[in-house]
C-alpha cells in the first residue's frame, strides 16, 4: 500500500497539464503505447469504426463547442492551421484503449508538429469523451478502431472529424 501523501502526489502529477511526449512505435508517433487487456474483450474481433457505426455520437458542431470550451479553460493561446488526429481502439465494452497514435499535418496535409501543449490539451479533451458506442456484429460485442481529428484554424478547433 502506498503512503497517503505519495498517492496524493501521484494524483496531483496526473492532473497537471503536461507537454505531449511523442513515443516512436511501429514507425508512428504515439502519445501512449500502453496495451490493456479487458478479459471480456479478449476473444472479440476488432473492426473498423465504419463497419459498426462507431463515430462518436455527437455532431461536429457539438464537439467543436465542447473542445473550444475545454481549451479556453486551459487558458493558453494557440496558433497554426491543420489537423491533429488521434487513432485508437474502443474495446467491446465501449472503453477507449490507452494506446494512441497521433498524426499531425498542416492545412495542406503536409506533416508538421503543432505546439506540444496544443496536442496535449486536445488529447486531454479526448480523454473526457466517455460516450463511445458499444458495437456489436451478429449479436456479439466487438471492439473497433477509430480516430478523432481536430481541424485547427488559427489555433482554434473549427471541426471535429469523423
Amino acid at each position, binding site marked *: 500500500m502506498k503512503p497517503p501523501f505519495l498517492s496524493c502526489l501521484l494524483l496531483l502529477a496526473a492532473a497537471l497539464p503536461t507537454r505531449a511526449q511523442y513515443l516512436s512505435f*511501429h514507425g508512428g508517433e504515439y502519445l501512449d503505447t500502453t*496495451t490493456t487487456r479487458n478479459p471480456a474483450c479478449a476473444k472479440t*474481433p476488432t473492426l*473498423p469504426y*465504419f463497419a459498426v457505426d462507431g463515430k462518436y455520437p455527437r455532431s461536429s458542431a457539438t464537439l467543436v463547442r465542447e473542445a473550444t470550451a475545454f481549451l479556453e479553460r486551459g487558458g493558453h493561446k494557440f496558433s497554426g492551421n491543420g489537423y491533429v488526429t488521434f487513432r485508437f481502439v474502443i474495446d467491446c465494452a465501449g472503453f477507449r484503449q490507452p494506446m494512441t497514435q497521433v498524426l499531425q499535418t498542416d492545412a495542406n*496535409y503536409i506533416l508538421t508538429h503543432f505546439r506540444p501543449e496544443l496536442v496535449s490539451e486536445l488529447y486531454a479533451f479526448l480523454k473526457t469523451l466517455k460516450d463511445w458506442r458499444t458495437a456489436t456484429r451478429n449479436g456479439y460485442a466487438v*471492439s473497433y*478502431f477509430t480516430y478523432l481529428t481536430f481541424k485547427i484554424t488559427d489555433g482554434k478547433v473549427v471541426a471535429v*472529424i469523423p
Partner: protein
Amino acid sequence: MAKSWLLFLSLLALARLGQCQRPAMPAVPAGDCGSKAYQDTLVARYLDRGAHRISYLSPQWGQYCDSLIAACPNIAYAYQQKAMPLIKCGDYAQAFPLIDKAVTLDASRYLAYRGFLKCIFSKDYTGAITDFQRVAKLKPNGREMDHTYAFFEGACELELGHYKLAEKAFAADMAVQRGPDDQGPVHFNSLWYAGVAAARLKQYAQAQAYLQQCLKAYPQHPEANYYLALTYQAQGQPALARQHLEAAQRALIGGYRLNEDNIFYAYYPEQITEYEVTQAMKEVGR
C-alpha cells in the same frame, strides 16, 4: 485483444506501403502505358483480380496499387484506390498527395472527387469550393456521389457561414435537378440543406416550405425534422417544435439517417445525433 492490436497495427502499416514488396503475380509483358487497352489490362490484373478480392484494410491492398503504379505510373485510378482506405482512417498526409496525383493525371474525373473528400472528410470547405468551381468549368452539370457540384458547394458555403452563397448554390442545385421543364424530382437532401440555409437567413417560412417538402419525400428524415423543429421554436411555436423533435428522435432510434453512402465514414455538414435532439428538447421544455 492482442489479435485486435495486430489488426490495428496492420492498418497502421498502410502508412508504410512504399516499403513493402509487391504481391507475387505473373509478370506482365511491358506495354504502352499510353494505351487505354493496356492500362485496362493492368487494372484488371492488379485491381479487379487483385486488390478488389481482399479487404482494403489489408496491407496487400496498397501493394497491389503500388504494383500497378510501378507498371504504369500514369493511371490515376491506382492513386485514388491507394488513397481511399487511408482517408477513411484519417491519414491525410498519406492520402491527399495520392489524390492530388490522381487529379494531376485526370482532373476531369478526380477533381470533383477531391472536392467531395475535402467537403465531407477533411472539412476543408474553401478548398472543396475551389475544386468544384474548377471542375464545373471542365464538366458543366457534372455530378459527384449522386449530387450536383452546386450541392456540395452549398454545403461548404453553409459551413463557412456564407448563407446567401449557400442559398444561391442550393437554388442552382435544385434547378439542375428540376431540369428544363422544371418538373424533375429534387433530392430530399437538397431540400433539407436549402431549408437549413433559409433558416440561417431567418427566412422561416421558406425554410419550413423546403423542410416540409423534404419530409414529404422522406418523412423520417431526422435532420429535416430537427431543423424544422428549430424554426418552429424560433417562431415561438413550442408544441410543433416538440412534435418534430420527437419525430427526429424516433427516426434516429429507428436507424433512419440521411441516406448518403458516406455517412458511415464521416458526419455530413449539419448532420445531427440523438444527443443534439435531446439537448434541443430540453430547450423547448424550458
